[in-house]
């Protein structure tokens, strides 16, 4: 391989991160965690991060001071949602986060009804 090729390879390789995602997941399957969490499950942290935690766990606890959906956590951490669910399952098992399933659409009253109630209340 010529020196020029070498350089292009090196430049090309300068991006990225030494860690691979499976190490962050520590080899656990995202399938098991998937049953508890989906993209719109709301996460609220219930404890402060401790220094001995995996950094991703600590980061989740930090940003979930107010409720965030799994999708949002995934976007903020720049990690795929399936991986985030694995991490969340850890925290959930340790009872460090509160998991709130989104209210199903069917259980919500119709929007027009709610608006009517609001209007009525405000007119009081």
């Amino acid at each position: 391989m010529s020196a020029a090729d070498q350089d292009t390879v090196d430049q090309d390789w300068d991006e990225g991160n030494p860690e691979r995602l499976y190490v962050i997941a520590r080899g656990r399957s995202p399938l098991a965690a998937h049953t508890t969490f989906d993209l719109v499950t709301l996460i609220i942290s219930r404890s402060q991060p401790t220094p001995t935690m995996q950094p991703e766990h600590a980061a989740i606890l930090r940003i979930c001071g107010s409720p965030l959906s799994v999708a949002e956590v995934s976007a903020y951490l720049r990690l795929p949602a399936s991986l985030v669910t694995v991490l969340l399952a850890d925290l959930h098992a340790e009872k460090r986060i509160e998991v709130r399933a989104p209210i199903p659409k069917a259980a919500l009253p119709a929007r027009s009804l709610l608006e009517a109630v609001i209007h009525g209340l405000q007119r009081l």
Partner: protein
Amino acid sequence: MLRAGSSPGSRLATAVLVCLTPAVVMAATGVLAASAASPGTRTGIVWCGLVGAAGAVVETLRRRHAVAVVREQCARQEQELLRRLARQEAGMVELARVALPEAIARLQRGDFPDDVLTAFETTDTVAGPEFHQARLAVLRAVLEAVDNEEGMRESAQRAFVNIARRVQAIVHRQAVDLRAMEDRHGTDPAVFEDLLRLDHGNALVGRLADSIAVLGGARPGRQWNAAVPLYSVLRGGMSRILDYTRVELHPVSDVAIVGPAVEPLIHALAELLDNATRYSPPQTRVHLTAVEVQTGIAIEIEDGGLSLGEEGRARAERMLHEAQAGLDLNDLGETPRLGLAVVGRLAHAYGFQVSLRPSAYGGVRAVLIVPQHLITTAPATGRAHGLGGMASESRPAPGTAMPSTAGPRRQGPATAPVPAARSSHRPLPRATAESEPAGPDAVPVVGDRTPNGLPQRRRHAAPSRAGAPTRAQVREPAPEPVQPGMWLAAFHDGVNGRAPSTATGGGHTSEESPGKGEQ
């Protein structure tokens, strides 16, 4: 002739005897002849006898002188020959003990055979020109043979490195692709899991290619310009071994490794971790820790496997130290030897200190010390999952304050620095709402990067609440996809008649909303 070993005195006597014998014989013959002859002829005979005796003496002396001269010449010649022989012997010894090793050493250092030969031509020629020529011929023959051998070895090595480089390039491309796929299929756990497995296998192939490249004298695969946090480096090492789940990574101090040393360190750690996991029972854990020491950072890898005997340990350490010799093709077959040779090479090139000691767990405790000059305490600019990634974002903190290393480096649209107070994030969305007169309907997109294809937005409920002091805004809640829970919380706020326009009210509602949502 003289007998050897006779004393000088007896030699002189013998010489005199030898000299005088012909003269004496002549004289005796003369006397006999004279006594036998008649008185008339006696005088003549006596004269003849005298002359004969004198002639014999003279002749004897002359010959003796000639013999002495010849003998002296012989002695000189013999001396000369002996001296030459000694010089040739010395020359041979010098050739064998000094010249050849030195010439080969110079050749191995990279000198050309001709240069080496000319350097050895200037030595003295006292042993004879022929001998000198022969000596040079021997040198030339050996050097050429060695040079050929070296050339072949080098070309083999180059070929290996070349192939390794190409494999590395493919592996890297595949790793990038896999990461992109992992992001793309992140929401499908089954596909994601398979991708992780492929990714892992890919990393193992990459490590093997890296090892061959290192043994071939090249650098390990990639180069990192920015410093990388030590934690990421350790996990990077873990990610390249088969049994990474058995490695227990303990918390490490908050330092970073300078860019050029990142890849070698990752690779050396991967090899040591691989050895540790390979030679310990599958159910045991391997502990990976890093502590700060006076000379730098000591990274310890401890396994609970078989203890390395003193002999085995000595052999392993010798292997670490002898790794500079280059790529031995025999090594490629044996994994542990390959691994330790790689570690030894990297340690030599980058100044790591590696030692193998018996572990308190019964196995081996490998300690790798990273020297101080390869460590930086400055916040690493290299992106680490969870930590650096957050730091490099322009997003204001949605919840509590960011870690101290992150800091508010770049301000987002809401430029207020984030105090650490819990409710402090409430005013931020309002500031955004003011700067964007589109009202609560406009989704305040703060982070522009959406690597996962996921919406990068701030929570929507807060602006609608905080920026809704008028009825019109209450009557027109955000028609955008609002999270149901938040929407309900806002509704409760409206119902309870809270004044959501104030910051304290906003903070209060955030305390309330979970409770309401649970009802």
